[in-house]
């Protein structure tokens, strides 16, 4: 009998939550042959997110007009707020083999009640945020008693960069895909042609991608790209980064297809990309600015030099998380490159002027490129997040039925 997993995803802002949940659900379905239900609370955001990768799911108006959809083998279900499940739906969910609350979202109360009545052991997981902090290893996998019923335990599952954590999302073919994309120079040319920038010979151009939160740090970096001798092309997928880019170029708005230039820099605005297309973009660029969790992890599989714009938290807690990652990531990197990377990373994340910091970082890109490959290999030795989740369920079943 196929194992049935149910994932709950609450979209807070941006597409990070759904990006991670969708990747995970699809991978569990495709690589582990699990029955997958993904409940999503923001149908509009889901629609926008899926438009680039599964346009056939949308009606003539570009909307998802049904509350239940089958996409890539994953059953997508609309999570109404307030919850509109009846007893049969609650019971159906509660009888899953595994229930995941992604990023600490809360199961509907009636589903919890139904969980308390189920006779079989159900693995209830709180899939937490990615962090490189050391306490993550100490909390990973621990159970959490819940006032639902005596036999019901929730477990906290932490993604991470080290053994002893839940690992990172990594599809079986992603490293092969990156190797393929990076082997063929014509892929870069195709990318440039798509933006209308492919007429000239741009083999010597520096290609960069930008997918960050709105930050005052951006302006200085764009100035630095414009004033350097090597021509640069900056690809900006539609999203939050565009606000600061538009401001920098004194444009009321920039939309997909726009190209703006200053000095040696051209900025090309790309339409919102499918996850696969975004992976390819990361692979083809010489430097990537990424944010949050999903694109941050993807940049590490692309093994190109990158800077992480971490999600800002209250009290500057995010800077501790950034330092924890730096501590792991920069280990083994030559000193000058590490200093330049750290300086730019801190400057970017604190909204400082990054003009001079880029000129300091720029000569280090080839060293960072080699380091990125080593880092990718180091990470790839560990089991991926989906496999770790499946293994965790196996152990859970064994402990429930020794």
């Amino acid at each position, binding site marked *: 009998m196929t194992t049935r997993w149910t994932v709950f995803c609450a979209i*807070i802002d941006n597409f990070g939550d759904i990006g991670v949940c969708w990747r995970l659900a699809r991978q569990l379905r495709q690589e582990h042959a699990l029955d997958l239900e993904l409940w999503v609370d923001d149908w509009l955001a889901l629609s926008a997110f899926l438009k680039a990768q599964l346009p056939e799911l949308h009606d003539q108006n570009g909307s998802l007009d049904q509350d239940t959809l089958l996409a890539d083998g994953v059953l997508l279900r609309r999570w109404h707020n307030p919850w509109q499940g009846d007893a049969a739906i609650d019971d159906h969910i509660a009888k899953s083999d595994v229930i995941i609350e992604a990023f*600490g979202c809360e199961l509907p109360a009636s589903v919890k009640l139904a969980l308390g009545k189920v006779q079989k052991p159900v693995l209830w997981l709180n899939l937490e945020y990615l962090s490189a902090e050391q306490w993550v290893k100490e909390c990973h996998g621990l159970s959490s008693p819940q006032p639902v019923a005596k036999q019901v335990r929730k477990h906290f599952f932490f993604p991470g960069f080290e053994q002893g954590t839940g690992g990172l999302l990594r599809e079986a073919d992603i490293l092969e895909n990156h190797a393929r994309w990076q082997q063929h120079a014509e892929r870069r040319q195709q990318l440039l042609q798509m933006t209308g920038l492919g007429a000239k010979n741009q083999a010597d151009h520096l290609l960069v991608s930008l997918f960050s939160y709105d930050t005052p740090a951006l302006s200085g970096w764009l100035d630095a790209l414009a004033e350097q001798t090597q021509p640069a092309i900056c690809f900006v997928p539609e999203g939050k980064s565009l606000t600061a880019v538009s401001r920098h170029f004194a444009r009321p708005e920039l939309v997909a297809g726009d190209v703006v230039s200053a000095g040696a820099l051209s900025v090309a605005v790309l339409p919102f990309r499918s996850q696969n297309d975004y992976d390819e973009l990361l692979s083809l660029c010489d430097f990537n600015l990424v944010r949050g969790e999903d694109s941050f992890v993807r940049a590490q599989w692309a093994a190109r030099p990158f800077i992480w714009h971490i*999600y800002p938290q*209250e009290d500057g807690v995010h800077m501790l998380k950034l330092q924890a990652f730096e501590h792991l990531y920069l280990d083994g990197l030559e000193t000058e490159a590490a200093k330049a990377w750290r300086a730019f990373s801190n400057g970017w994340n604190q909204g400082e002027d990054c003009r001079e910091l880029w000129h300091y970082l720029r000569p280090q890109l080839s060293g960072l490129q080699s380091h990125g490959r080593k880092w990718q290999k180091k990470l790839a030795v560990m089991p991926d997040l989906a496999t770790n989740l499946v293994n965790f369920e196996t152990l859970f079943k064994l402990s429930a039925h020794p």
Partner: protein
Amino acid sequence: MKTAQEIKPGQVIMIDGSPWKVQKNEFNRAGRSSAINKMKLKNILNGMQTETTFKCDDKLEYIVLEQKEVTYSYFADPMYVFVDSDYEQIEIEKDDLENVLMYIEDGMEDVCQAVFYNTKVISVDLPKTIVRQIAYTEPSVRGDTSGKVTKVARLNNGHELQVSSFCEIGDFIEIDTLTGEYKARVKR
């Protein structure tokens, strides 16, 4: 009910109808606004220990326990012996003193609070501020009287902590037992 974040070491929470004493409660910030509490728990009835996690705003049932003033008397391996005002002896295991063990020393006169669950003592709380003597520390740095520069000092029971650099061997110092930090040098 209290949230997981509000629970303090020494307090007792009910899980599945059993009383569990919180021996440690560590708070960690996860992503966005979420936070995690990792607790080390000991089942008061059977002594079983476990580690567990909660979201910081998870509601937990906790129970208020009887307390009694006691003073430390002596160590009779593996039990620490305290006496109450009626000179009645109260024995407690090392594990149950985890948060205060570093301040226990022969001859201490602090009035402590023994905490009971169904007549069994489950923990001892020290006063918020205690005074201890420095058994050893490196010589003082000349000229620094600001207290901002610190160095390591060892207490009579071997516990080490950071103190102001002007502190010397034999000095008495105040310690905050909740944070474990040095507060000030005092005269005795």
